[in-house]
């Protein structure tokens, strides 16, 4: 199976991202949405953990949520894919199941 994991919480406020990373198998995909997108920005104290996880998993952000929060494409960690709601749908249908870390 390949699982799509979604994270919608800020990594500074809640343990959702860390719990996701600790429970996602190698080769899975992590999609950051809502306040979860802050984890995708460069220069934060969370960045090393995200880069480390990116060695094992594919990371995406929901671009609509980045734009709403003023996070330009140039502020994102290299290698994180950007999708819109249609791309979110494609990620859901392109994986065997979806696990939402709320």
């Amino acid at each position, binding site marked *: 199976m390949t*699982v799509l994991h979604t994270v919608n919480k800020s990594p500074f406020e809640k343990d959702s991202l860390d719990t996701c990373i600790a429970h996602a198998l190698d080769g*899975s995909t992590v999609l950051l949405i809502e306040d979860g997108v802050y984890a995708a920005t460069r220069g934060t104290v969370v960045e090393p953990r995200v880069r480390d996880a990116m060695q094992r998993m594919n990371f995406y952000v929901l671009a609509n949520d980045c734009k709403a929060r003023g996070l330009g494409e140039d502020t994102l960690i290299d290698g994180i894919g950007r999708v819109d709601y249609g791309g979110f749908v494609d990620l859901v249908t392109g994986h065997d*199941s*979806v*696990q939402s870390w*709320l």
Partner: protein
Amino acid sequence: MSAGPRKKLMYLNRRAPGGTIYAVEGLEVVLIGAAFDQDVCMAFVGDGVYQLKAGQDTSDSGVKNFSPAYRALGDYDVNRLYVERESLEERGLGVDDLMPLTWEDEDDDWAEKPSIHVVDRAELARLIDAQDVVFNF
């Protein structure tokens, strides 16, 4: 109640009881879902392990105590409750601190068997990965 092959359903509990309703209303889904004859398990991760803490008593809180409902799970054939070892350890808990939940195995002369299985994080990750559907509460 459903045609087709049985699906693997996991109810993944990550929240403490009491502070929010997710544990209570999550349990309601498990009990209703039992009627659908699927391949069901529950997992308790992070603060979710507190849901199984023994000795919960809301008599001084003006709130309904729902923790006895976990004891009914065995009767509903929900008898695989995976509790994450690391989550217990981080919280200073052992399996002895949890409610002693059991079920009766009709294929083994109705022997009473424990429903709680302590598994480590890596094993739980594989279990999550193997499900068709994971409900998050």
